[in-house]
């Protein structure tokens, strides 16, 4: 009691060292994170904003060139346009297909089949491996001219397939396939979402004679909408950030003929192959704005199709 009274007394004056100490304490405990955040996140982010207005080749100090980098990007850089095209093509196929596939597998695994725990783990494995260099190398082997895929095609149907990864028409779709194959994490989230749906709704529906498909469309999909939305936002952001597979499969070039020039790969080339750190920083900021606007657009349109259970409407 006396101690409590004492602190209150000093608190009233507000100037004693004990009080200041008390105020600083939380920051002291936060310090490890705070120092890390300022030094390794905030600092570099601000530095990159500054660099985006400079010309900087690492060996000489940066020189201020105003908005030249941004002007060039939007008026004179056809590879920037190509990088956007490739990235959007990739997103357009990758996000819906991956979500559909993840949902399909989740719905199947949701039924209490024997060993479903095992299958759940099994289907998650590609997501653990997928981002790795080894898998990208494996993909190269699979879709090469005389790779496994073509050998199977030849054996089954007698078709001689093209070299999927070295053909500018098909290269990006092998990367889409690689991404879809890593459906594990949205699948797990869908599974959790499916468990939240009250079973009595399905019982009532089947009493009324609704088919499985109708139940899926009228019960599962609407009640799962918030989860689908969450997964979609995550996948769009992930998709914009895709880098490793394109880098490994094209040997860092984004080839053939820039057909796998992902935005991040182009950014990397500008920074570390041509040493235009300033331009690369500007590219990074534009990517940030693109991702931010896509995410906010998703949130703005979500009220038309995402319904929350506790929502009054």
């Amino acid at each position, binding site marked *: 009691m006396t101690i409590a009274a004492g602190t209150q007394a000093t608190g009233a004056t507000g100037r004693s060292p004990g009080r200041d100490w008390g105020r600083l304490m939380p920051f002291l405990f936060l310090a490890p994170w705070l120092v890390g955040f300022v030094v390794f996140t905030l600092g570099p982010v601000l530095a990159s904003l500054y660099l985006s207005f400079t010309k900087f080749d*690492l*060996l*000489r100090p940066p020189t201020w060139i105003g908005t030249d980098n941004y002007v060039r990007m939007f008026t004179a850089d056809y590879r920037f346009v190509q990088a956007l095209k490739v990235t959007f093509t990739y997103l357009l196929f990758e996000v819906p297909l991956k979500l559909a596939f993840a949902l399909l597998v989740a719905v199947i695994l949701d039924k209490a089949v024997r060993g479903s725990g095992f299958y759940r783990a099994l289907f998650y494995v590609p997501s653990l491996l997928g981002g790795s260099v080894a898998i990208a190398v494996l993909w190269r082997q699979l879709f*090469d*001219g005389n790779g496994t895929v073509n050998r199977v095609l030849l054996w089954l149907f007698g078709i001689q397939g*093209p*070299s999927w*990864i*070295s*053909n*500018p028409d098909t290269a990006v779709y092998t990367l889409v396939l690689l991404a879809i194959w890593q459906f594990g994490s949205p699948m797990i989230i869908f599974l959790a979402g499916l468990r939240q749906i009250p079973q009595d709704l399905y019982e009532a529906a089947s009493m009324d004679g609704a088919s499985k498909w109708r139940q899926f469309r009228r019960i599962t999909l609407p009640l799962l909408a918030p989860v689908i939305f969450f997964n979609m936002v995550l996948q769009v952001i992930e998709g914009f950030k895709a880098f490793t597979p394109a880098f490994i499969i*094209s*040997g*860092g*070039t984004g*080839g*053939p*003929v*820039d057909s796998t020039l992902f935005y991040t790969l182009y950014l990397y*080339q500008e920074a*570390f*192959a*041509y*040493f235009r750190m300033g331009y690369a920083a500007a590219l990074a900021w534009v990517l940030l704005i693109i991702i931010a606007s896509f995410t906010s657009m998703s949130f703005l349109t979500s009220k038309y199709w995402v319904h929350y259970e506790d929502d009054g409407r």
Partner: protein
Amino acid sequence: MSHATRRHVLVNSAAVAAALASNFAQVPGVHAQAGTRLRCFWWGNPDRDKRTKAALEAYKAKFGTDISAESLGWGDYWTKLSTQTAGGNAPDLIQMDYRYLFEYARRDTLLALDSLNPKPLDLATFGDAARNSGKVDGKLYGVALGTNSKAMVYDTTMFEKVGVKSLDAAWTWDDFARIAGEISKLNPGKYWGSGDNSRWEQGFEHYLNQRGKLLYTADGKAGFTKDDVTAWFDLWDKLRKSGAVAPAEIGATNTGSIDQYEVSRGTAAMSFANSNQVVAFQSIAKNKLAISVFPNEKGSPSGHYLKPSMLMSVSSKTKSPEEAAKVIQYLINDADGVKALGIERGVPPSSTAQAQLAPELDDLGKMQVNYVAAVSKVAVALPPPPPKGAGEIEKLMLRVADTVAFGRASVKDGALQFFTEAESILARA
């Protein structure tokens, strides 16, 4: 003793500590390890890594200096080196390429080695051309570890199958088309006469040299015209269409690492590369390989020049320039160092090193020495160093040549695209 005040004790113990410290400093092993620990960084392949590490180990055994070794592939090497240099953390010993020597030297990131020559670094046994190849603005910034020239690497077994026992040094593009065409007929659709060289910027440079032109002039401008590019793309387009040269899908998978070339992958009998690389190619290829000069037009210059394949430079930030120079001296003049490196980086420029290596050479080594000697008789002058932006134009060539090969652009449009973009890259750099 009764005067052992606090002050006394302090002074005495400080003296003891100083004595101890100076004693330690006199122990040679401790001194060498604490004082001079060098870092050496190069680009390479597994064979080169093994040889270089062996040479550095041998140096340590002899002189006690610990040298930590790092190596990467060509592409990643320049990324890491520039990042380390920018961070003030450059390795002491830096393997340099002629392409980047001027850029690094002129930005004061390399040490001028003139004051360390002739002692401890002795270049007396180097020919003038080899010594000067490491000079920038009259000062010595790099020491050549090997000499090479571009070379066409071919599969002797496949050549014999179409009745070609040996290649004449005066062979022409017509001979090339004929031989390649015949080889393509051996296993149609699976194996071709030659890889597609239209994508290789240095192949284009060679073609220009044969026409008496340069890729880049001394003041960093393009030394070629749009018509030269058209002729180059057209040459390969015809070869591709006739089936002599592998199609675009094969060409596009050659990412430039040794195992991705056509002769290594077993998709074609000829690949265009550098003479020293035959060692690395042979370590992968099944059949016996050989090297030849590039095909030519009758009566034109050979287009070949002798180039320092790799230079060794010292960082301007190094704490032990003397020791670093001693290591280079060991690699170029000491029999042990020379033998450890062998001929993998090209023919050593020092005449004593060549003599030391001669009895040790295997067939591949002899082939290289003879090749470089033969080329030196017909060689054109070493062109001026490539300007900034040359690395980007190298990649541009890959991209545009692929566009033409895949039929996405005509020869004429491709040439125009390459020419205009190359000009704008040079203007921007």
